[in-house]
């Protein structure tokens, strides 16, 4: 018992007096002004749906997971969102393991209210089978270090984690269409949650001197303050929730001023979160694309089937005019740059088409499943024929990213698929054996093929 007494963080009378005196001159002990937030840093881990937020010295981690469960009886069409907080004892000497304390429950409740009441997370899209099976999204908040203002930091962490969380795609199947099949992420791209807006919590601390208000209190200020208020707003200045649990009484004008300030801060923080999430998403997409050159074999068959399918589509616009353009655009580099205007020869049109297919396959959730759709051997041959020439360009175009997705698809002259089978197969095997190739490597075979193919194009 005494050890515990010895380990508690204590406040001296000196500090209390000093903090209040300094606040009279608008000074805070860490040098901030009264309405400045501390530095926010948002980090993500490789796992989807986890975020770590540092707000000055405060560290919070959030994890999002989802499970299929039965919905509530009174809301059969909606998924559920639940929040669990854990105040780890390493965060503060006064936190104890075991049941969540009152403060922990309050924190979870404030964040939950901000998300649920404002319908920020779309729960209806989480419904799989009405009345039977819905997604239950669970957000776990772990407080790692208490440097003050846990609510705001935890809120940002929860939002960042929800924005980057991807749930597996599922479809209805089975004999009666009532069975829910959950597709693993390798098979189908997981889907993000639908989040309409971001409710940001902003906490204010009031001190015994009536008009002294500070935003984002630190640990010291929290120990000294007389009362606190948390306002949850989104970037459009809609108030999602307000929490003022006890503490000193505050004038109405002060509250209104706080809400105005909170609106500005919410906008700033929203942009920060969005930027962090965006950079994480692009990084993740790049990671996925880089993986594909090593899995070329699979893609060939996939692209092949797509080619077969696309043969039935009406041949779009760029007919012979594209062929003439080929002579002007020879280098691979040019091709990669401008997929639409480029490669208008027989081979290159096929290139584009297949690249487009491949890109569609890589880019986002696709409705076509390489494992489930059968592979027609005729189509496969056809694809190999055209594929051989197109593989090198495809690889570099892969590495370019999504900006070319879909654009090449319309460029499909079906009649050129069955061209020079032998050439293509030879080059294709060459390509297969060289796993990761650079741009330069890709260029060389192309040039060789150009020599061979010129007689074919004149046919």
């Amino acid at each position: 018992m005494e050890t515990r007494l010895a380990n508690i963080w204590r406040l001296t009378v000196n500090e209390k007096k000093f903090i209040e005196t300094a606040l009279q001159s608008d000074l805070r002990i860490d040098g901030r002004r009264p309405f400045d937030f501390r530095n926010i840093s948002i980090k993500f881990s490789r796992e989807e749906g986890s975020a770590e937020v540092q707000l000055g010295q405060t560290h919070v981690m959030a994890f999002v997971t989802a499970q299929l469960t039965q919905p509530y009886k009174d809301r059969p069409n909606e998924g559920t969102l639940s929040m669990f907080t854990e105040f780890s004892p390493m965060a503060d000497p006064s936190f104890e393991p075991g049941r969540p304390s009152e403060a922990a429950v309050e924190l979870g409740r404030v964040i939950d209210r901000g998300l649920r009441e404002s319908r920020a997370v779309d729960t209806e899209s989480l419904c799989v089978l009405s009345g039977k099976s819905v997604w239950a999204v669970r957000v776990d908040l772990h407080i790692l270090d208490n440097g003050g203002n846990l609510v705001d930091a935890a809120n940002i962490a929860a939002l960042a984690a929800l924005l980057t969380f991807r749930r597996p795609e599922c479809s209805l199947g089975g004999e009666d269409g009532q069975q829910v099949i959950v597709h693993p992420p390798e098979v189908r791209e997981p889907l993000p949650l639908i989040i309409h807006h971001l409710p940001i919590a902003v906490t204010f601390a009031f001190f015994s001197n009536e008009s002294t208000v500070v935003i984002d209190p630190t640990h010291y200020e929290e120990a000294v303050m007389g009362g606190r208020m948390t306002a949850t707003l989104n970037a459009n200045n809609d108030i999602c929730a307000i929490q003022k649990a006890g503490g000193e009484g505050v004038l109405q004008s002060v509250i209104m001023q706080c809400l105005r300030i909170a609106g500005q801060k919410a906008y700033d923080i929203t942009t920060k979160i969005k930027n962090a999430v965006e950079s994480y998403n692009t990084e993740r997409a790049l990671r996925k694309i880089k993986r594909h050159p090593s899995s070329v074999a699979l893609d060939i068959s996939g692209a092949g089937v797509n080619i077969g399918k696309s043969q039935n589509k009406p041949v779009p616009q760029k007919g012979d005019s594209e062929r003439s353009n080929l002579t002007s655009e020879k280098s691979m580099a040019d091709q990669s740059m401008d997929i639409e205007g480029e490669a208008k020869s027989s081979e290159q049109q096929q290139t584009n088409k297949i690249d487009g297919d491949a890109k569609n396959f890589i880019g986002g959730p696709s409705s076509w499943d390489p494992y489930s759709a059968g592979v027609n051997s005729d189509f496969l041959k056809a694809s190999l024929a055209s594929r051989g020439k197109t593989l090198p360009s495809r690889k570099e175009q892969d590495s370019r990213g999504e900006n070319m997705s879909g654009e090449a698809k319309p460029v499909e002259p079906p009649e050129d698929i069955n061209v020079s089978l032998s050439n293509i197969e030879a080059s294709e095997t060459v390509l297969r054996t060289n796993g990761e190739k650079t741009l330069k490597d890709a260029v060389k075979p192309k040039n060789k093929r150009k020599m061979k193919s010129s007689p074919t194009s004149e046919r």
Partner: protein
Amino acid sequence: MENKLSGSPTSLVDQFVIPGDEGLDLSTMSNQTIKLGSSLRQDGDVLSVMKAGTFKFSKPNKYWVESSQKRYEPHAGDSVLGIVVDSKADNFLVDIKGPALAFLPVLAFEGGTRRNIPKFEAGTLIYVRVVKANPGMNPELSCTDASGKAAEFGQLKDGFMFESSTGLSRMLLSSPTCPVLDALGKKLSFEIAVGLNGRVWVNATSPSTVIVVANGIMNSEFKSEVQQRGMVEKLLQNLKLSSQSFSYTYMIPTSTFIGCLLLTNFLQLTNMKQTSLMFSLQLDN
């Protein structure tokens, strides 16, 4: 210094060591008596290190490992900053950041009698000296020095106290003056009391000065001298000292333990050395 350790391939003095390292090969020093300080242990012929830190040596024969941590282990003779938690009939219960609360006898003040017991309420910050610190027992404190004089111990009024690590406290107390205090003292006027338990108290006339000093010190533990001075420059620029008033500068380094003169700054080194210096840092602008 290095010659004594010619037996070992690499002398570890002033190097960073981690637990398990062999500090010295004792077989080569069989005819010497050496004194082992904290975190060193003799295992037969080998001196092994128990804690991570810097391996230090001082003539003629003292070795120890200096480590920095947020916890404080009470040691007799240390001067620390304590917070009064409670007062009993005979003692004040004081928190000194150790594993147990410490006792400060109500009579342990200069000229202390039953009639003039100071009134320390809970939360009072006091500068005290550790008299006894046996493992398993509550440490004992005193507000007088060994000879019974007050010597600046006692309650610290106003100002701001912050906690950091023991390594920072030792750095602040080292001689010659550590760069951050030196740089701050050239431009600002403030009082500072450093406890070996990682607590530092700063006081000055204006809150902005206190804030600048406190933040400067808090961020200076792992910086090199140049970095410390650079940081202080930036802080001072932000503070805009152009209109600070003049005061006198006094620096009185002494090698004996003396009672106070003007402003206070007690410095005590690690448990291997006992010297105390007094310091007043003031402004010149």
